[in-house]
């Protein structure tokens, strides 16, 4: 399934924040988690995640810290902040409104 670019972009923030709300993580693991949760339908270009993470960091929604990984290489771990959690809650409500509206429409049009 080819997702529209705008939709992918719009869903990136809540997805990243929601995954980080589960626990601290790093870029590669976040991408893997997204693929896993979406059953492989939501494919990001891997590199594109990082500008998103950096934007969230600048906005103060996540905080980053370099620490050593098991292999000895440094890895940049991201953690959701208090503002991040608040933002996630707000986004969640918005998405639920969209989701609910669409669901209602489509249930009427073509009741599955």
């Amino acid at each position: 399934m080819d997702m529209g670019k705008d939709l992918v972009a719009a869903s990136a923030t809540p997805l990243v924040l929601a995954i980080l709300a589960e626990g601290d993580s790093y870029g590669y693991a976040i991408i893997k988690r997204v693929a896993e949760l979406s059953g492989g339908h939501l494919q990001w270009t891997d590199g594109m995640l990082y500008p998103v993470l950096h934007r969230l960091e600048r906005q103060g929604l996540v905080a980053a810290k370099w620490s050593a990984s098991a292999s000895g290489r440094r890895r940049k771990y991201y953690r959701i902040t208090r503002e991040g959690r608040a933002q996630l809650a707000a986004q969640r409500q918005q998405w639920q409104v969209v989701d609910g509206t669409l669901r209602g429409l489509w249930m009427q049009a073509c009741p599955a």
Partner: protein
Amino acid sequence: MTALADQPLEEQIAQWREYLRRRQAFQGPDIEELEGHLRDQLTALTEAGLAGEEAFLIAVKRMGSLDALSREFAREHSDRLWKQLVIGPGAAEGPPSTRHTEMLVVLGLAVAAALAIKVPALFGLQPDRGAEMFYFRNGSLFVLPLLAVYFIWKRGSGMATALWLALPFAAAAVFANVFPFRAHGDTERLTALHLPIGLWLVIGVAYVAGPWFTSGRRMDFVRFSGELAIYYALMALGGGVLIAFTVMMFTSIGMNPERLIGGWLVPCGMVGAVIIGSWLVEAKQSVIENMAPVLTRLFTPLFTVLLLAFLGTMAWTGRPIDVKRELLIGFDLLLVLVVGLVLYAASARDPQAPPDLFDVLQLVLVTSALVVDGVALAAIAARISEFGFTPNRVAALGENLILLVNLTWTAWLYARFVRRRGSFAALERWQIAYLPVYAAWADLVVVLFPPLFGYR
């Protein structure tokens, strides 16, 4: 994630990293983060059974195209596209401790220069009480030795080099002060004007830190000189603003800051700025694009138009050059300017690149400058016996000839290059090889002219 023992794969990763590094939008930590991602991906793919080569192709493909990626990074970090000059820790390469030491050394030297210029006042030599010519003659000696010390320290040149470099400064101090100059005479002024030119070559030797005639860094010294001049002009502008505010604020409380400004701010600022400016040029080498070549690109066409318009007007109206006393110096300055334009165009050029329109323009500029100067020289020569040989005129004439020789040969080399008969490197070599000639002439003026013309 394990270290990938696959050697070719490591090379491919290194190459990919290098591609990222060349883009301004990425900085060190981003590259490290992205590389970590790439390696995680590679490990996962090889564990799934892919061979190294295939795994690399897929991992890089998933990462996204470099163009798209760097566009996204640039959008998020637009500040990085503006090269930043951060002074202090974190700015340049190298461990923080050496940067810190460098800052202390530079500040120390700048303060030393600022204090040195005030030392003669302790012995009653006040610039506003008849000693202004002393400061005029010796001005460069208060700061250039300290600048040489900076480069000796920076390049790690040994004590022997330092002693060798001290010799010309000592000689300069002798020649600036032993001659019984007649008060406010021409030769005294000539000494004051030519001494810094001669000493600037000594700074060049300290800068390249090695044998001058074989050093590949001579062009770097030319670049350094141009950038320093621009920085100095900018600092002078800032200093002017500082002075304006000093005057405004102190006058508002009924005090006259004239002595503070004339006695301390201006002289100390003038010498200190040379050291600070040099350090800035050194520190920001890779941070900011060079300004001198940009100005060269901007003004070469304009000066070419000016010279052509002048020649055209002269040919059209038939007006002869009205020979005045200071005319020769004016045309000297014109040639200096043209040499500067050629030099700084050369300093920013890739010697391997084929000739383009700008090179043709430079050739036109040099040729028209030669014609203009030729016409002016002919007019002056016709009347030089009438004026007599004063030291000023001999110095100006000598400088004119030196520049004329340079530009004639430059025009010849440029013409060969534009017609693809010669290389640009030959032209660059010529310009660099010619540098000591200016210093040699300046030394000649300092050493020989005063006794030759009876110190008048």
